[in-house]
């Protein structure tokens, strides 16, 4: 390390770049780095599923029904993790399923973040009736268990992948609204906001450009953690027959189809669930690491 000369305060070392500082905190956490590696792998598999999957996800090999994985007797290297009841390659379906899970997570988070930040900022800036109305509505949503609320919404809209994503986005809304509102109220009373207001910044500018960037740390952490629960909940809805519909290779839907083969073919049941567990675990590790690195109260 070479000392960086500074003109104004001699002897002081310039603070590291924020991203550098973030990485030095983040990389201390071995679990978080492992989570990041696994997550990047899942993203890679999802993006290139067309190229690296050994078979198309929906081709039925009628001579290979319920073939076990390659290390078991009767298995073949052609189908590494075996085939399902109609002869589809399980490994290829899981690889394509990664696309669905990631897209579900992404859309759910984008939807609920956009609406949640919007409502949260409005509640934080316009106190009074507007705030009470928004926060009471969020309380109502919170009084139902998440999966049940999602089920109710899907029951109204009808089963399907998009409706399931919409339903899950609504379920996560209250947390994001509360977080944004709390952060916005805390920031609003600070001097830099007053200064910006005095110099003539409009309300929209104050909300989006002045205050919002300083509320982002808890929102990023919440979004990562919600990403993992969104994957879990979407899989649960798929499993209950309310999410993605067969023959979509969505992991939960695959498990629903596999249920009746529990007694005969363990591999049909085991691998899609393992894919869910590994992905969700990686995201949770990642979220924990992000929280430790982004939360200033935990920094020494």
């Amino acid at each position, binding site marked *: 390390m070479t000392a960086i000369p500074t003109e104004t305060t001699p002897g002081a070392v310039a603070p590291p770049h924020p991203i550098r500082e973030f990485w030095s905190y983040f990389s201390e956490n071995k*679990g978080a780095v492992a989570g990041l590696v696994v997550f990047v792998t899942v993203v890679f598999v999802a993006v290139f599923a067309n190229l690296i999957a050994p078979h198309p996800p929906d081709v039925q090999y009628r001579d290979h029904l319920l073939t076990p994985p390659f290390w078991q007797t009767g298995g073949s290297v052609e189908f590494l993790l075996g085939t399902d009841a109609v002869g589809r390659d399980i490994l290829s379906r899981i690889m394509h399923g990664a696309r669905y899970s990631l897209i579900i997570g992404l859309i759910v988070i984008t939807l609920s973040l956009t609406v949640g930040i919007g409502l949260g900022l409005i509640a934080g800036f316009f106190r009074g009736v507007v705030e009470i109305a928004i926060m*009471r*509505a969020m*309380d*109502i949503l919170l*009084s*139902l*268990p*998440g*999966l*049940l609320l999602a*089920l*109710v919404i*899907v*029951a*109204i*809209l*009808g089963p399907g992948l998009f409706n399931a994503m919409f339903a899950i986005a609504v379920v996560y809304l209250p947390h994001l609204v509360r977080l944004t509102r709390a952060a916005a109220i805390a920031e609003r009373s600070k001097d830099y906001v007053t200064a910006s207001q005095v110099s003539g910044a409009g309300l929209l500018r104050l909300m989006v450009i002045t205050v919002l960037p300083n509320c982002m740390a808890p929102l990023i952490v919440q979004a990562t953690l919600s990403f*993992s629960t969104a994957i*879990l909940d979407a*899989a*649960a809805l798929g*499993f*209950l*027959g*309310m999410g993605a519909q067969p023959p979509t290779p969505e992991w*939960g839907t695959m*498990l629903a189809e*596999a*249920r009746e083969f*529990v*007694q005969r073919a*363990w591999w049909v*049941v*085991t691998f*899609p*669930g393992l894919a*869910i*567990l590994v992905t*969700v*675990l990686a*995201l*949770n*590790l990642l979220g*924990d690491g992000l929280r430790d690195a982004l939360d200033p109260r935990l920094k020494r």
Partner: protein
Amino acid sequence: MLQFFLRRVSLVIPTFFGVTLLTFALIRLVPGDPIELLVGERGIDPARHAMLRAELGLDKPLLAQYAIYISDVLQGDLGKSIVTKEPVLSEFLTLFPATIELSLCAIVFALLLGLPAGIIAGVKRGSAFDHTVMGVSLTGYSMPIFWWGLLLMLYFSVYLGWTPVSGRISVMYWVEPVTGFMLIDSLLSDDKGAFISALSHLVLPSIVLGTIPLAVIARMTRSAMLEVLSEDYVRTARAKGVPPFQVITVHALRNALIPVITVIGLQVGVLLAGAILTETIFAWPGIGKWLIESVNRRDYPSVQGGVLLVAVVVITVNLIVDLLYGLINPRIRYAR
């Protein structure tokens, strides 16, 4: 205390009416004509259609419809199931004990394992045990429990044959429903085999449903212990020469348990949501399975009533936890 009590109770009332608004909207938001949904695909002649509309009050303005709905709900009338023609409330009350029994066993399982694991992990911070507990509980927290249930069933029921695959009790036994709780009813029936059968049917579903609460309780207990152990009064107790075990159980644990109790209260929603999945996998005749079946059969009055009742249960339990919390911790009571 009375003031605290009244303030908390009054906060619950608007939430309750909010939920009724949601369930009221449920049937009216479903695309299509509610009458046609009710009669199914057989079709209906216009005269009968108009009569049913009037009978159900669907020809009145929305506000009047809501007023009628609220007054029915407050009198305990939640409508009748389209499929079974039974009142929704009585169906719910018949099935609810099964869900309570399962949830209680799940939370007992979670506490029996989670509390000691969290305490030891907190006391032995940084040890191999601590790392194991944290790793296992994060895995449990990330678990798709519907898959976990299938996996346990695959190993313990199918491969080892230790536990039954599904249901509440073996078909060999007939137990008179007295309380609705199979464990108690089978004990009352004076047939030892029935009790053992009921117990063995409970094991796997309880473990599956208890997995996420177990993970949450272990993590929460650990962090609460860590916080309390660094307090001055713990150091003072140690300096006075109080034996380590007594410091942990008397000085530390009692204070560490306060946040843990809140977390346990919050698990009620988790348990009821988890019951939907667990009961579906193990064919457990509780309200979770009933709700899913009602959604699948498009039995909207049952879904509407069931959702409202579940919400009432969650709100009530949260209220009770809040009040208990005020009882344990006076600082909460007087805080504005």
